[in-house]
Each structure stands twice: as structure tokens, then as C-alpha cells.
């Protein structure tokens, strides 16, 4: 076998092996998207009911609460960025990071300090490489987040928002995550969680609630609060933040799997194309080799015939 042909054969083998791997990853991601989507759907009733309750307290009482009232001058905001632990998901992580950077720039232009909180190793690596300050980060659960994970993430954020600004507390809480629109579309977006703007809650609810067709512009009855409106609000708002973060984590996970699936699908397709091209080249090389061998044999025998004819004379 000629050197050229051997090189082609080797490359075909290697690309075939890669194709098998990407194909497997594509199928794993596809099954995980479905699972993640189901989890998003399962968390929807809770998010929806909680949003309703928050709206009810917000509109049905005149209670002032640090979590609902807009600070007069916002000096510091927290930005929570949700990325994934692993790459191989196309532009998934870079889109989320880009959205977070745009948001940070915008907030800084408004004269606010920005505290960054990050979920997922990818985002953390990005910030660490650029030596940017990250207040707190979490990783290890981005593929399948649980409610306990969401609580873990929410706890320091709620603490920061309850603290006075002078002592290092924050006045606003923004979240950047990738919304799962459909299998083909996922968009990185930013959202202000706190302080709540009640009109917005009433209109859109959480994105999950809106997706499930939450009634819009519903007139809520006057509620009786047990034990009191303040206590209810105190207990309700942290849960609301947790549930929003949980929902964002789930959507982010679903988006990540969808992005992985797409990236791996195009990798598999590319590998297939590459194999076709390489096989054609290998065939041509083999044919060239055969042609050369034939012409060598023909040429050799002709020379031999000439030589014997010459010696006879």
C-alpha cells in the first residue's frame, strides 16, 4: 500500500471514531433535553402559584418591604450568571457570558457597582482568566439542578439584599440565564428579580407561569393574611427568589442540553462529510497506485522484451 493511501486510511479511521463519539453525545443530550424539559414543566405549578401569591400580597397590602421597594439611589447591584459546567455546547456559554457583560456595562454606566455571582465552571473560568472579581460561585449541579441547589444559590443573594448598602449589601438583583424557547431556539437574557416591580409580576409572572398561560390582568380578591401581611411577605419573597432561580437553573440546563445536541449533530454531520471526501481521495489514490503499477509492469516487460531481442541479434 502506498504512503498516500495509508495516510488517507488512517484519517478515515480517526474521523469515524470521532463521529461515533459525537453521535453518542448527541443522543445522550437529546434524551436529557426531554428530561430537563419535563422538570421545567413539573416546576411550573409551584412557580405559578407562588407568583399569584406574591402578586396578591403586593397588591392587596400597603406593606413596605425591603424586597419590594425600590431604593432611592441604587449603589450596588448583584448579577447572577448561569452557565454550564461543561462545554461542547456551541455558543451556549459565550452567549450567556456576553449577555452578563452587556448587563454589567449597562449597570456600570448608570453608576452602580456590580457584584458578580456565577453558577457553572465555564463562566467562572472565563472570569478567573480575566482576573475579574467574583463574589461567590457554585458548580457541579448544572446538568440536573435540584431545588436544594437553587436554595443554596439563593441564600447568599437574599442575605446580600437584606443587608444595608453601607455594609456591603446590594439594592438590586439581576439574573442572566438562557431561556429555553424551543429545541431549536434558546436565548440568553437578563431579568431583574428584585426589587419586584409588581405590575411586571402581574403581567408576565415568571416566564414559566407565562408559558403555562397564567391568567393575565386578573383582579385579585382582598386577602386575609395569616399571621400578618409583613410576616407573609417576609416568608414569601425568599421563596419567590428561590423558585425563580430554580426555574432559571432548569431552563438553563434544558438549553444547555439542547445546545449540546445541536453542536454534536453538526459535528456528526461534518464528520460524515469528511469521511465521504476522504474516501473519494483514498479511492483516487488507490486507483493512481494501480495505474502506476500497471504502467510499471508494462514498461518493465517492454524493456525486458527489448533487451532479449537485442541480445539475440
Amino acid at each position, binding site marked *: 500500500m502506498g504512503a498516500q493511501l495509508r495516510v488517507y486510511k488512517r484519517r478515515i479511521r480517526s474521523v469515524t471514531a470521532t463521529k461515533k463519539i459525537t453521535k453518542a453525545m448527541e443522543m445522550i443530550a437529546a434524551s436529557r433535553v426531554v428530561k430537563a424539559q419535563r422538570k421545567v414543566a413539573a416546576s411550573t*405549578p409551584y412557580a405559578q402559584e407562588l407568583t399569584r401569591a406574591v402578586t*396578591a400580597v403586593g397588591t392587596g397590602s400597603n406593606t413596605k418591604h425591603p424586597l419590594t421597594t425600590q431604593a432611592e439611589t441604587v449603589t450596588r447591584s448583584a448579577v447572577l450568571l448561569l452557565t454550564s459546567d461543561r462545554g461542547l455546547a456551541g455558543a451556549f456559554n459565550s452567549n450567556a457570558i456576553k449577555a452578563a457583560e452587556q448587563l454589567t456595562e449597562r449597570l456600570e454606566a448608570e453608576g452602580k457597582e456590580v457584584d458578580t455571582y456565577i453558577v457553572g465552571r465555564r463562566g467562572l473560568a472565563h472570569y478567573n482568566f480575566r482576573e475579574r472579581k467574583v463574589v461567590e460561585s457554585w458548580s457541579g449541579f448544572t446538568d440536573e439542578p435540584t431545588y436544594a441547589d437553587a436554595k443554596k444559590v439563593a441564600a447568599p443573594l437574599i442575605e446580600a439584599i437584606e443587608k444595608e448598602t453601607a455594609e456591603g449589601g446590594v439594592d438590586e438583583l439581576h439574573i442572566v440565564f438562557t431561556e429555553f424557547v424551543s429545541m431549536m431556539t434558546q436565548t440568553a437574557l437578563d431579568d431583574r428579580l428584585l426589587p419586584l416591580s409588581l405590575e411586571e409580576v402581574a403581567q408576565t409572572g415568571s416566564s414559566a407561569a407565562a408559558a403555562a398561560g397564567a391568567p393575565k390582568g386578573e383582579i385579585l380578591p382582598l386577602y*386575609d393574611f*395569616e399571621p400578618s401581611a409583613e410576616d*407573609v411577605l417576609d416568608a414569601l419573597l425568599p421563596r419567590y427568589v428561590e423558585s425563580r432561580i430554580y426555574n432559571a437553573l432548569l431552563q438553563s440546563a434544558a438549553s444547555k442540553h439542547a445546545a449540546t445536541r445541536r453542536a454534536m449533530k453538526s459535528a456528526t454531520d461534518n464528520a460524515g462529510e469528511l469521511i465521504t471526501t476522504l474516501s473519494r481521495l483514498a479511492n483516487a489514490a488507490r486507483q493512481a497506485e494501480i495505474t502506476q503499477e500497471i504502467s510499471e509492469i508494462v514498461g518493465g516487460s517492454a524493456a525486458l522484451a527489448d533487451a532479449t531481442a537485442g541480445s539475440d541479434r
Partner: protein
Amino acid sequence: MAAELHVALVAADREVWSGEATLVVARTTSGDIGVMPGHQPLLGVLESGPVTIRTSDGGTVVAAVHGGFISFADDKLSLLAEIAELSDEIDVQRAERELERAKAEGDAAAERRADVRLRAAATR
């Protein structure tokens, strides 16, 4: 006045139970509260405790609920809990082990959770 309550018991990650009921008893931070059809709109903070739902067909559903809210309006009642388990879903042995462990470690919250689970399980 409608004679039925539409009850939805939802945990953070799933809907635990939903259906029609005539009476729901839950434990709020200021004591047990019973809700029947036609009750005044209500929003309360729940304590860790058992929730009893008397269904329209005469049955009783008991669930162990750990923290959350009760919200009622328009004969629609929702119980929101971070963790909620129906009595027949509870693993009694595990809850007993948890109770032992919590007692040994003096973890009051865990002890209370295990206790609520056991009491809910005892009603089935």
C-alpha cells in the same frame, strides 16, 4: 356558594396532589386552620406539619408538609410547599432512622421533619 374546594398541593418540583375536597386542615405559624368552601380569601405561612384534606368522595388524604404557604381564593385552594409528601409515599423506616439520628445530633429541625413524617404516615 360552591360546595367544593379545588385543592392543589404543589411541591417545588412537582404537583403532589390535586382534586376536589370539602375540608382542608393545615398548620400555620399561628395555629391550625381549617378551610371549607366559601372561606374568606386567605394567605398564610405554613409550619412543618401534617395537612389533612377531606376529599369530596369521603376519603381523607394526609400529607407531610415542610414549610410553605396556603392560599385560598374563589374556592381554589393552593398549598405551596418546598417539600410535601403524601402519607403513603412516606418511607416509615427511613423517617424513623432520621428521627433517631436527629435526636442523637440534637438537630431540632430535622427531628421535627421526621416527626411530622411519622405522624402523617401513622394516619394511613
